[in-house]
């Protein structure tokens, strides 16, 4: 697949840059050199750096994830292992991703665009291909939930359905999982952390089973 020019440039930068993979220094460079475009932005910081930006909690970062705006939007990261490195299309339309880009400050100084909370939440659950939802992902989900102020559950549910329909197999029951994901946020807001974990793990297991089934069909594993 032909890569958009900006994606090729960022890939080249990842190979040449001396800063540590996943480091803040690298985020600053990427943001200022490639994403910032006068008053506008060419893309968003995603993954754990986006979670830190919206929650304000400092966390450890293994890599830097980016969503690049283009006719076909791309998801790219600076990880070097084959397991984790990615550079490919994200199956969500550019107008939607631009609409869901939220301007915020990272570490109180760097102006960045990140996906809105619900998009981050969905990507966090979809992106865990381990059998069990990792504890680290539970903690990061809590960081996201803490950033929801007066959540409108109907809107959040509709957004979850929109995202999951495009990012999971066609025969997957998205409405059913959207309910679990909403219950997880509601449980957090009620400080019922046990139930929150149960719903998170339930949603993850359903998405994960469906994805692995599809991977087998497509001989990706």
């Amino acid at each position, binding site marked *: *697949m032909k890569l958009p020019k900006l994606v090729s440039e960022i890939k080249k930068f990842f190979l040449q840059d001396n800063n540590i993979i996943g480091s803040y220094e690298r985020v600053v460079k990427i943001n200022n050199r490639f994403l910032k475009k006068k008053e506008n932005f060419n893309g968003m910081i995603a*993954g754990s750096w986006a979670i830190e930006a919206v929650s304000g909690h400092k966390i450890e970062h293994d890599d830097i*994830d980016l969503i690049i705006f283009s006719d*076909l939007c791309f*998801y790219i*990261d600076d990880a070097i292992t*084959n*397991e*984790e*490195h*990615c*550079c*490919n*299309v*994200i*199956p969500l339309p550019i107008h939607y991703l631009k609409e869901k880009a939220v301007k915020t400050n990272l570490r109180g100084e760097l102006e960045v665009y990140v996906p809105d909370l619900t998009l981050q939440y969905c*990507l966090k659950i*979809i*992106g865990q*291909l381990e059998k069990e939802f990792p504890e680290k992902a539970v903690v990061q989900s809590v960081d996201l939930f803490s950033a929801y102020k007066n959540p409108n559950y109907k809107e959040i549910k509709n957004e979850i359905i929109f995202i999951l329909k495009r*990012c999971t197999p066609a025969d997957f029951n998205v409405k059913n999982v959207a309910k679990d994901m909403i219950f997880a946020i509601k449980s957090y807001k009620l400080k019922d952390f046990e139930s929150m974990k149960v719903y998170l793990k339930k949603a993850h297991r359903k998405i994960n089973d469906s*994805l692995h089934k*599809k*991977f087998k069909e*497509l001989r*990706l*594993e």
Partner: protein
Amino acid sequence: MPGKLIKYWEEKHKKNNAKNKSQKKFGNKKK
């Protein structure tokens, strides 16, 4: 994001693209 998932998204995109092209070619027949 895991490489396997991203590969799946690429396959999904190709399939959708092919579907859209074929719909454009033959048109959406409505009664």
